């Protein structure tokens, strides 16, 4: 078999430049939007923090799928590990948010590290099966260990202490929103640095031509294990954020639909671009909020159709289309 390069990224001239770490003006405007939303849309802060959390989760999948090219159908496993870690800590008397979040990330990263050895062994199909299997295994474990996790009823009684010892989590979700936004921005800056580093570049090398990378001396397995662990940790932090801000952990944090929806967001936004993950997650969540309220069955049908159409005709998602448009405009200008 020949190695099939990922077509969405192959024919794009802008990607062949070396990445530079400078912040573009549009990026700064982009990050002012969620801050503006805090003041303009005070009625939607709960939905807002959900979007921020899911964006963070989508970013973590983008690291392994979009950059390193590792297909995963069970990324919710790490989200769930983080959520249950943060939730259980708070239930059992440690409600300090920031240390709880760090522990959630650490627990998920440790799980991710162990799982990564199974994942890097196989090819695409084996990876899909292993990640799917691990996800289901954890779901079933949390379901059966109801005396710890609350099972189907979910884990309730999560009480959080004041953030930084000063700000209590309020019902309107103001603190939760700003807390989620701060965590998202901090981790985004770190991840942006990561993917623009030589390490990030080598991940793209793995995605585009896994067989050639050992020839230039890149330690393929070690790189894959590293990025898988990091992505699991970030997913765990996202899960921890959800548990802390909603003060509840439901069994569905580990479910297969969550992993599948995450893939959909990434594809809609455009995988392999950090902003694609953010835009995809935001659009998906907003659409879900307003459309699935009308009829959940239709919502599922349209999202399925959208996915089929996106795969057949619009590879690269929204960001891919925007990038293609941008390059075309610039060429015309010259």
């Amino acid at each position, binding site marked *: *078999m020949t190695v*099939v390069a*990922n*077509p969405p990224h192959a024919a794009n001239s802008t990607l062949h430049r070396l990445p530079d770490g400078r912040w573009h003006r549009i990026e700064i405007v982009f990050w002012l939007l969620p801050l503006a939303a805090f003041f303009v849309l005070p009625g939607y802060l709960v939905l807002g923090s959900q979007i921020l959390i899911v964006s963070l989760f989508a970013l973590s999948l983008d690291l392994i*799928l979009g950059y390193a090219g590792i*297909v995963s*159908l069970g990324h919710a496993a790490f989200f769930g590990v983080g959520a249950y870690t943060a939730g259980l800590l708070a239930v059992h008397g440690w409600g300090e948010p920031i240390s709880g979040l760090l522990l959630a990330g650490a627990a998920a990263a440790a799980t991710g590290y162990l799982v990564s050895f*199974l994942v890097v*062994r*196989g090819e*695409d*199909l*084996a990876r*899909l*099966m*292993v990640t*799917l*299997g*691990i996800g*289901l*295994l954890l779901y*079933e*474990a949390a*379901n*059966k260990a109801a005396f710890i996790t609350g099972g189907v009823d979910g884990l309730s009684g999560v009480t959080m202490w004041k953030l930084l010892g000063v700000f209590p989590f309020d019902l309107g979700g103001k603190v939760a929103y700003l807390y989620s936004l701060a965590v998202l921005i901090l981790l985004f800056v770190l991840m942006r640095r990561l993917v623009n580093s030589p390490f990030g570049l080598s991940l793209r090398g793995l995605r585009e031509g896994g067989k050639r990378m050992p020839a230039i001396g890149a330690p393929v397995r070690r790189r894959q294990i590293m990025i898988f662990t990091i992505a699991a940790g970030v997913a765990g932090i996202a899960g921890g954020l959800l548990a802390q801000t909603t003060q509840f952990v439901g069994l569905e944090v580990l479910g*297969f*639909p969550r992993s*599948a929806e995450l*893939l*959909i967001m990434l*594809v809609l936004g455009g995988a392999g671009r950090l902003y694609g993950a953010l835009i995809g997650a935001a659009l998906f969540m907003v659409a879900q909020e307003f459309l699935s309220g009308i009829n959940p*069955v*239709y919502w*599922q*049908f349209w*999202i*399925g*159709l*959208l*996915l*089929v159409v*996106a*795969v*057949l005709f619009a*590879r690269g998602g929204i960001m891919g289309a925007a990038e293609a448009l941008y390059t075309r405009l610039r060429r015309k200008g010259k």
Partner: protein
Amino acid sequence: MLTNFAGILFDGIAYGSLLFLIGIGLSVTMGLMNFINLAHGAFAMLGGYVCVVAMTRLGLPFLAALPVAFIVTAVAGVILERTLYQRLYQASHLDQVLFSIGLTFMAIAAATYFWGPGQQPVQLPEFMRGQVRVHGLDLVAYRLFLIALVIAITLALVWLVTKTRFGAQVRAAVDNQQAAAGMGIHVNRIFALTFALGSGLAGLGGALGIDVLGLDPTFPVKYMVYFLLVVSVGGAGSIRGTLVAALILGVFDVTGKYYVPEVGAFVIYALMVLLLILFPAGLYGRRA
């Protein structure tokens, strides 16, 4: 105790033969076309609903509804293969996965729209409803029929693949698609025919499985893992591997759920992860 165990074993084998019937189509699609089709369970579901409609609306008896389910699903399969699937044979596995998840979602929504979210009942013929006594063992007649039918279908499949011209062409295309095309084999036509056969068998399995697996719109997602499991454990493209894997999984799942119900589906997932670690290419995998 021992007769009890034999009874469970029997149920496990009946369950496993259903998994085989549905999974074999998936195995062929993966082995032959290298296509990861997560929507395969949707074909099984379609077969189930066709069977129910044929019986309730058209008034066909169960045994006459089965071939209808096979034919309708096979036709649906070949239409989808020609219009959509064949565009993605060369695509990355990620694209295939996303595409088939999208199809699955649409199938679930469509099934809920037309038939509602509830379980569908099936009226089995009189002579299949009772129990048959064999060596002091009470066996459900329907499951006996199921096993017998699957044995017959398996033998027919083996004959088809090993003894006929069509089978030789399929095997050639699995081994080396380009060389097969170079020898004048119409690889595309072989693809379409095997896809139709595979989805037809899945539809038949779905219809036969209403009594055992149940039938509701979440069917494709609920059993997706089992079908994938059968294929990846057995090794894609191998009839023998698929059969062995389906029987192992069926027996382990039923015994696990009977003896240690508190652990539930855990047994089967743990077994799957273990088998995949030990045999990354499947039990009878040809592609390492």
